């Protein structure tokens, strides 16, 4: 047995992230750990990698009891981890990133020449091509991940943990990654794959462990199980697939004409975007994160001035208008990051709920706030959106991620705007909350709302959208009507210019 983790328990305050978890990794195998968000799978791996310290439990490597107090200690035991959020130094080169902590020196000096040479050889020997001198922030996401993997290989790790490695990748890049993983196994490495994408598990893993609410609930060889069984153990209930009631789209509510945004780099970050959203429909924007979605959302909501083009809401020209006037014109906006944009963590629930309502006469009179009305609004949000909260004056930071998201979503939905801009509405929340938000979205659509849904989760886009637009490198790369394209086809347009595909 290569690694054994026995009876690991880890608490964060009241929450038990890992409850008496035991697992083992054998030499030269790929072990998959699956589970919903918040099931504790990342926590257990952070413990193995020394980023978190367990409250109880022991770790053995090749039968020897070890104490992993830091990532450095983990590295000394040849354990490496590719984290979900890449741990890269953006403005340094690929080679500089890879050799971090194990630099090639010439006395006290950094030997750039030899470093580049070594990294090039390393990348060739593992078949992971990379330009050692490329600045990391200018590389595509897939290559950045390759830098991460090479960094771990450079440290001569034998045990490699992948935390949700495919979450940020395009379907093609995922295939590449899975190939890489198999190859690493063939070269004698042992891998742990954390994921909630079961197809990947079936494709590469030898063994699978299912976690739910901090506990291991199921364990099996991959050959002895199937996706359906794994799903059942993950959520302990069967998922229903959503069907949309057909609706006749109404008038155009939101329209973008030739919107372009020039970035600081040498390329346009949004390039001539034209689209419209009508009432009674959801238009989905698909694409790998970082292809202009967040810029698009910021332009539509008024947070960013476009350099060219026009924006219309309900026929009104709102190009270069303030966020406030765009909101007044009838747009609500669920932002992609609930803590960066969507709330103030140190403010109370009431103060968070009030945002966007503060100009309405129901809530202010001559500029003076009506606290009873605010209390009422907050409590009704808590009720209607099933938010687990103690009282309306507690701090936002005390809510869990899913509940905070429900408050943000609820606040925006309750504005009763005719146009909704919804950006990554279910990122990082559990399945229950996700289903609830999906249901609310569909309800909004059936009531005549025009919804622009931006999501990097292809499943979400495909289940909810009437029409799908694929963004790639800031351009509209393809458009589809519901049911017209499958995931593979969409995936292709997410990674290649349409000119290249269609010729």
């Amino acid at each position, binding site marked *: 047995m290569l690694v054994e983790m026995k009876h690991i328990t880890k608490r964060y305050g009241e929450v038990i992230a890992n409850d008496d978890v035991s697992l083992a990794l054998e030499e030269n195998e790929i072990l998959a750990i699956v589970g919903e968000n918040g099931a504790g799978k990342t926590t257990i791996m952070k413990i193995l990698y020394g980023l978190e310290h367990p409250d109880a439990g022991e770790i053995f490597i090749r039968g020897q009891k070890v104490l992993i107090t830091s990532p*450095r200690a983990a590295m000394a035991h040849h354990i490496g981890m590719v984290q979900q959020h890449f741990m890269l*130094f953006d403005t*340094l080169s690929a080679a500089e990133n890879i050799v971090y902590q194990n630099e090639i020196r010439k006395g006290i000096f950094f030997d750039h020449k030899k470093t580049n040479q070594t990294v090039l050889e390393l990348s060739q020997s593992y078949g992971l091509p990379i330009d050692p001198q490329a600045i990391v922030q200018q590389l595509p996401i897939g290559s950045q991940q390759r830098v991460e993997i090479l960094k771990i290989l450079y440290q001569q790790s034998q045990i490699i943990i992948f935390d949700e490695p495919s979450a940020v990748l395009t379907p093609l890049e995922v295939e590449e990654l899975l190939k890489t993983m198999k190859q690493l196994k063939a070269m004698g490495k042992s891998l742990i794959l954390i994921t909630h994408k079961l197809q990947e598990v079936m494709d590469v893993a030898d063994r699978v462990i299912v976690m739910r609410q901090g506990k291991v609930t199921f364990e099996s060889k991959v050959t002895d199980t199937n996706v359906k069984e794994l799903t059942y153990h993950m959520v302990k209930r069967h998922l229903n697939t959503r069907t949309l009631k057909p609706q006749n789209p109404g008038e155009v509510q939101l329209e973008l004409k030739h919107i372009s945004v020039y970035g600081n780099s040498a390329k346009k970050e949004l390039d001539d975007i034209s689209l419209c959203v009508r009432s009674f429909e959801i238009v989905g924007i698909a694409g790998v994160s970082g292809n202009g979605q967040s810029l698009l959302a910021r332009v539509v909501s008024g947070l960013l001035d476009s350099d060219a083009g026009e924006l219309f809401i309900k026929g009104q020209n709102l190009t270069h208008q303030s966020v406030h006037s765009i909101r007044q014109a009838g747009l609500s906006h669920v932002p992609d990051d609930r803590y960066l944009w969507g709330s103030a963590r140190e403010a109370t629930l009431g103060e968070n709920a009030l945002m966007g309502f503060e100009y309405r006469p129901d809530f202010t009179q001559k500029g003076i706030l009506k606290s009873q009305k605010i209390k009422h609004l907050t409590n009704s949000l808590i009720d209607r959106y099933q938010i687990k909260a103690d009282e309306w004056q507690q701090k936002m930071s005390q809510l869990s991620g899913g509940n905070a998201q429900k408050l943000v979503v609820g606040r925006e939905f309750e504005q009763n705007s005719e146009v909704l801009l919804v950006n990554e509405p279910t990122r990082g929340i559990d399945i229950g909350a996700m289903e609830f938000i999906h249901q609310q979205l569909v309800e909004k659509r059936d009531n005549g709302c025009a919804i622009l849904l931006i999501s990097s989760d292809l499943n979400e886009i495909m289940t909810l959208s009437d029409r799908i637009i694929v963004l790639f490198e800031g351009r509209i790369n393809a458009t589809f009507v519901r049911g017209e394209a499958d995931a593979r086809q969409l995936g292709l347009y997410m990674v290649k210019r349409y000119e290249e595909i269609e010729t």
Partner: protein
Amino acid sequence: MNLSYLTTVANSTLRMMTPVLYVTLAAAVCSKVKILNISMEGVMLISAFFAIVTNWFTHNVFLSIITAIAIGVVVSAVVGFCIIYLKAQPVVVGMACNTMMSGLSIYLLYAIFHTRGVFTDPSLQGIPKINLPFIKDIPVLGQVLYNLTIVDYLAFASAIVLYIFLYKTVLGYRLRAIGINPQAAQSLGTKVERYQFLTVTLSGILSGLGGSLLSMGSVTLFIQNISSGRGYIAMAANNLGRSHPLGALLSSFFFGFCQSLGYILQGTSIKSQITTAIPYVATILALILFTVYGRIQKARRISRLRKEEPRETPASL
């Protein structure tokens, strides 16, 4: 406007810029590891004071400079500890430190020398001025470098050494990496807080040297609040120099020039209130121009981009 006038300006610029250069470098290394340090004003002040105290008791210039450095390191360590380990708000820590050091220096000035305002004494030793053997005889250069001290030369050397350290050595590379992404460095097993703490602490060496120059450089005395805002000017200089040691060299040269201009104009009919304001106005203008220049650059880049042919979007909706 003759040559000797210009060399005088150049000479005084060099002497004015070195204290600012030291604290700007201190600010630069701190911001390289992502720590906002505004305590240089206080650190410089208290170092200048203790340099004079040691000087008074030992009449030894070397020991005085060492004391200034030691005090700089100790106070910076406290500041770093509060910001890094106690997670205190950096601006408030800096303000508290500056208030405290201002109070402490005046308090001790009274307690030790029983005086207020200014302390000076003929027995105090200044840092020896060096006039390099051959260079001093070269017509212009000799006058430009006239009467600079070893600590002045050390300031220029520090900027260059710091540049090599940060951009060419392994340790410097690690420090820059920490500044670029502290979380990543942490997850790769670097003790980020320790590096940050050591950087802030050692930046005290620079502030301390700057302080020793104030009280033992061009003049040998201590005046209440002798640092007179140089620590704050350094923040602006660091901003202009993009936290790069060589950038710091350029921006502090600029401030040195403004200051020496102020002093030289004092001899003319222009009122002293106006001449002393020159560095501050210049700082504001420089910051504005810096931004404007950046914007012009960006606008040029964009207008180049816009010249590209417009392109059709596929399957328009």
